[in-house]
C-alpha cells in the first residue's frame, strides 16, 4: 500500500457511493440495537427489494447518531433528514414515500436545526452518520488513514510529537495530562521494545462515549494508535476493552482484520520501515482497571491492582518497557490533528483546553444521548439547550460529571465553562465524559450513598484507606439516611472522607469520597435534616456545621 493506492481506493469508493441516488444510514450502535434497529434494517431491505430500489438507494449501518433516547434513528443522507422512533411500519414508509416518491415522512422527522445539533462541534464523531461502521473503504473515502500516510512518509517521529504538543491535545480520560508531553517521554525512553495502549475500559457508569466511538468509527482509533506507535517508536499496541461491550469488541476485531488485509497494520506500513500490530485485551469487569497502572497489570493477566507511581507507565509500563497509554477519545483526535494541522485544532475550545469533548448525557433529562461540544461551553448550554432540561414537572438539581469519582454541580454553578480547570474548582472533574442530570426527585444523600457503594464494591482492596474507608463511608451514609446519625457522626464522616482522599494509593481511592464531599459542600441541608441532635434522639437540627477543612476536621 502506498499513498497513491490509498487515494485510488478512496476514489473508487467515492464513485461507488455516487452511483446511488440515496443513502440511508441507520444507527447500528448498541443503544439503537436494543431499541430494535435490526427489525428496521430488515424491513427497509425488504421494502427496497420489493420496490426495485436497490440500485437507487444504498442501506448502511452507521455509528451513533446521538439521540439514543429517541431510537431507532434513521438518517437519509442525500436529502438530510433524520427520523426518530422508527419502527418497522415507519421504516417501510420512509422507503416507499421518501425514497420512492420524494415525500418526507413528517410524523417521524427530527428537526436538525434543533440546538441539540447546532450547538455541537464534531471532530471525534465526524463520521457518525456518514460512513458504514464496518467498512474500511468508507473510512478511507472519508479521508481515513491519510494522516498515518502523512506521518509515515513526510514526517519524522519528533515532528509528529511536536504537532500533537503544539495542538495542545490533553488526555480525554479525565486527568487532562498533555498528550504530546507523554508521547515525548516515551519517545525519548531507550528500550528495545515500547508499547502503545488504548484504554477502552470505560468503567464510569453513565458514560458511553468510548463504546460509541469504537462501534461507529473503530478505524479512527486504530489510526491514532498507529500514529502514536510511529511517534514513540513502538511496534505493538493493545486495546483494553470492557467485556460489557461485545459489539464494540466485534467491530474492533473486524477493523483490525481489514486494516491488516490492506497493509495498514502489519509490517512496512506505507512502504516505510514502520511495523505496527494491534491486539485486543478484554477486561473482565473491574472498574479499577480504568486506572492506568491497574490496566497495565490486567493486560499482563494479573489482578488489576494499581501500583505506586512513579515510575509512570511512560517510563516503566508493560513488561517494564516505556508505554504510551491514552484513552479512546484521545487517539480519535490524533488523525484529524495531523490532517488539519495543530493550528486548526488549537483554535477550537479554550486556550488551556483546546479541542472538543464528547459527553454522554443521561439521567433525568429530556434528550439523553451522545454529544460533542467545544471545550469551554457553558454547562447550562449542555443541560438545557442540548439536553433539553429535565422532564416536565421536575426541576434541575445537579449535574454529576466525572463518574463516581466526580462531583455534583448545583444550579448556582450552571454557568461555569466546561474545561479541565473550571470543573475542578467546583469539586467535579472532567472525567471521561459521563454526565448524569439529577432532578429534584432525587435525594442527594441517597445519590452520595449510591456512589460510595459503587466505590466500595470496586475498591481493589490493596490499600487500607480505600478498602476499609469506603466501607465505613457507605455504612455512615446508611446510618444518616436511617436517621440514626448524630452531628459527631457527620463530622467523623467528613474527616474520614478527607483521610481517604489524601492517603489512598490510586486515583480511585483518592476520588472515592468526592461524591460525598461535593454533596456535603452544595447540599449540606439535605444531610443536616437527617441528623439527630446528640443526646436527643429523633430531634431534627438544622445548625450549620463547621466548614470542611483539615483544621476544622481536627477540632472535631
Amino acid at each position: 500500500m502506498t499513498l497513491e493506492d490509498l487515494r485510488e481506493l478512496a476514489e473508487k469508493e467515492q464513485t461507488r457511493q455516487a452511483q446511488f441516488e440515496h443513502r440511508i444510514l441507520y444507527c447500528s450502535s448498541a443503544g439503537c440495537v436494543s431499541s430494535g434497529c435490526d427489525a428496521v434494517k430488515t424491513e427497509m431491505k425488504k421494502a427496497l427489494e420489493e420496490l426495485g430500489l436497490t440500485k437507487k438507494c444504498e442501506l448502511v449501518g452507521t455509528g451513533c447518531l446521538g439521540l439514543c433516547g429517541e431510537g431507532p434513528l434513521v438518517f437519509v443522507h442525500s436529502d438530510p433528514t433524520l427520523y426518530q422512533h422508527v419502527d418497522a411500519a415507519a421504516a417501510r414508509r420512509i422507503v416507499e414515500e421518501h425514497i420512492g416518491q420524494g415525500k418526507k415522512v413528517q410524523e417521524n422527522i427530527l428537526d436538525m436545526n434543533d440546538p441539540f445539533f447546532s450547538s455541537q462541534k464534531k471532530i471525534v464523531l465526524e463520521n457518525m452518520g456518514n460512513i458504514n461502521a464496518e467498512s474500511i473503504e468508507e473510512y478511507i473515502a472519508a479521508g481515513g488513514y491519510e494522516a498515518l500516510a502523512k506521518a509515515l512518509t513526510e514526517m519524522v517521529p519528533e515532528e509528529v510529537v511536536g504537532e500533537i504538543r503544539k495542538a495542545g491535545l490533553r488526555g480525554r480520560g479525565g486527568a487532562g495530562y498533555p498528550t504530546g508531553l507523554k508521547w515525548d517521554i516515551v519517545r525519548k525512553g531507550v528500550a528495545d521494545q515500547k508499547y502503545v495502549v488504548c484504554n477502552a475500559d470505560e468503567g464510569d457508569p453513565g458514560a458511553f462515549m468510548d463504546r460509541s466511538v469504537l462501534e461507529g468509527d473503530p478505524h479512527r482509533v486504530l489510526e491514532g494508535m498507529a500514529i502514536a506507535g510511529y511517534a514513540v517508536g513502538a511496534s505493538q499496541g493493545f486495546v483494553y476493552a470492557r467485556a460489557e461491550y461485545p459489539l464494540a469488541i466485534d467491530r474492533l476485531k473486524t477493523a483490525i482484520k481489514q486494516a491488516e488485509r490492506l497493509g495498514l497494520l502489519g509490517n512496512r506500513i506505507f512502504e516505510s520501515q514502520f511495523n505496527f500490530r494491534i491486539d485486543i485485551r478484554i477486561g473482565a469487569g473491574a472498574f479499577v482497571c480504568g486506572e492506568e497502572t491497574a490496566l497495565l497489570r490486567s493486560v499482563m493477566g494479573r489482578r488489576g491492582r494499581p501500583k505506586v507511581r512513579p515510575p509512570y507507565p511512560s517510563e516503566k509500563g508493560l513488561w517494564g518497557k516505556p508505554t504510551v497509554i491514552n484513552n479512546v477519545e484521545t487517539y480519535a483526535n490524533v488523525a484529524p490533528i495531523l490532517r488539519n494541522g495543530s493550528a486548526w485544532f488549537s483554535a477550537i475550545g479554550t486556550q488551556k483546553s483546546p479541542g472538543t469533548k464528547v459527553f454522554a448525557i443521561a439521567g433525568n433529562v429530556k434528550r439523553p444521548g451522545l454529544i460533542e461540544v467545544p471545550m469551554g461551553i457553558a454547562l447550562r448550554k449542555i443541560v438545557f439547550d442540548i439536553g433539553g432540561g429535565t422532564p416536565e414537572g421536575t426541576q434541575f438539581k445537579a449535574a454529576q460529571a466525572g463518574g463516581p469519582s466526580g462531583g455534583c454541580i448545583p444550579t448556582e454553578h450552571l454557568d461555569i465553562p466546561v474545561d479541565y480547570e473550571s470543573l475542578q474548582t467546583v469539586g467535579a472533574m472532567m472525567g471521561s465524559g459521563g454526565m448524569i442530570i439529577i432532578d429534584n426527585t432525587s435525594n442527594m444523600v441517597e445519590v452520595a450513598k449510591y456512589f460510595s457503594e459503587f466505590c466500595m464494591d470496586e475498591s481493589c482492596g490493596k490499600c487500607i484507606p480505600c478498602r476499609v474507608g469506603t466501607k465505613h463511608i457507605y455504612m455512615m451514609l446508611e446510618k444518616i439516611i436511617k436517621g440514626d446519625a448524630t452531628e459527631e457522626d457527620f463530622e467523623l464522616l467528613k474527616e474520614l472522607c478527607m483521610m481517604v482522599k489524601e492517603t489512598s494509593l490510586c486515583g480511585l481511592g483518592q476520588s472515592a469520597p468526592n461524591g460525598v464531599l461535593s454533596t456535603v459542600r452544595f447540599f449540606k441541608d439535605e444531610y443536616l435534616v437527617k441528623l439527630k441532635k446528640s443526646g436527643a434522639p429523633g430531634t431534627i437540627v438544622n445548625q450549620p456545621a463547621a466548614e470542611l477543612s483539615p483544621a476544622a476536621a481536627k477540632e472535631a
Partner: protein
Amino acid sequence: MSVITFIIDDEHYSAKEGDTILQVTRDNKIHIPTLCYLDGLSTFGACRLCVVEIEGSPKLFPACTTKPTEGMIVRTKTDRLKRYRRMIVELLASEGNHQCAVCVVNGHCELQNLAYEVGLDHVRFPYLFPHKSLDATHKEFVMDRNRCVLCTRCVRVCHEVEGAHVWDIAGRGINCEIIADLNQPWGTSESCTSCGKCVRVCPTGALFEKGASIGEMQKERGFIKFIVNARNKSEWVHTAHEEE
C-alpha cells in the same frame, strides 16, 4: 554515585541516589511507622502509614517508595499525618477481629505496637466483625484470617524468597482474603514447603506456630534481609537484627 542532600523535619540529611525516604530515615534513626514494608521484600506501598508531606505538593507521599530529590523538604510528624495514621490503624482495628487479650502474639504484635504508638485508645467506627475462617489443617502452623491485615508480606515472601507461591489474595475490596493454592485447606496444599517464612514475617497473630499459647509467639523478621543479602550479595554474616 551522586549524593542528594535534603531536609527531613528541619534537619539536613544526605542520601545515596536511588535510596527511598524511608531508607534514609531508618539509617538515621528517625522513626516512621510502617506495616506492609519489610526489609528484603519488594515494596508494596499499600498500608499508607509511612506517608509524609513534601513541601510544594498538597499530596502525601509514601516514604517507602518515594525517592528524595535535591533540596526536598520532607515532614514526617505533622498533625495531619498523625491524625491520618491514627485513623488508618483505627480502620484496621475495626476491619478484623482483633482480640489482643487472647492472641498468641499479644505483646509482640506490630499492629498492637502501632496502636500504642498512634494513641489509639478507642475506635470511633463500628466494628465490622467479619466472618473469617481459621485454618489449622497444616501440621505445624495455623492461619487465622480474623487477625490478618492483608499486608501481603506472606504472599511476597513465599513468592520472592521461597519461590513456592502458595499464598495469594482472592476477592476484591473489603472481601479480600489470603488463600492457599485454590482456596483450599493449607494442610492439603501441594506447593507449601512448610518453610515457615510466612509465619515469621507476619506482623500479627494471623500466622503462628501450633502449640504457642497466648502471648508466647515471638517473631524474628530480620532473617529475610539476611537471606536476600546472602543470596544476592554473598553476605553470610547475620547482621540484620533491626526490628521495626
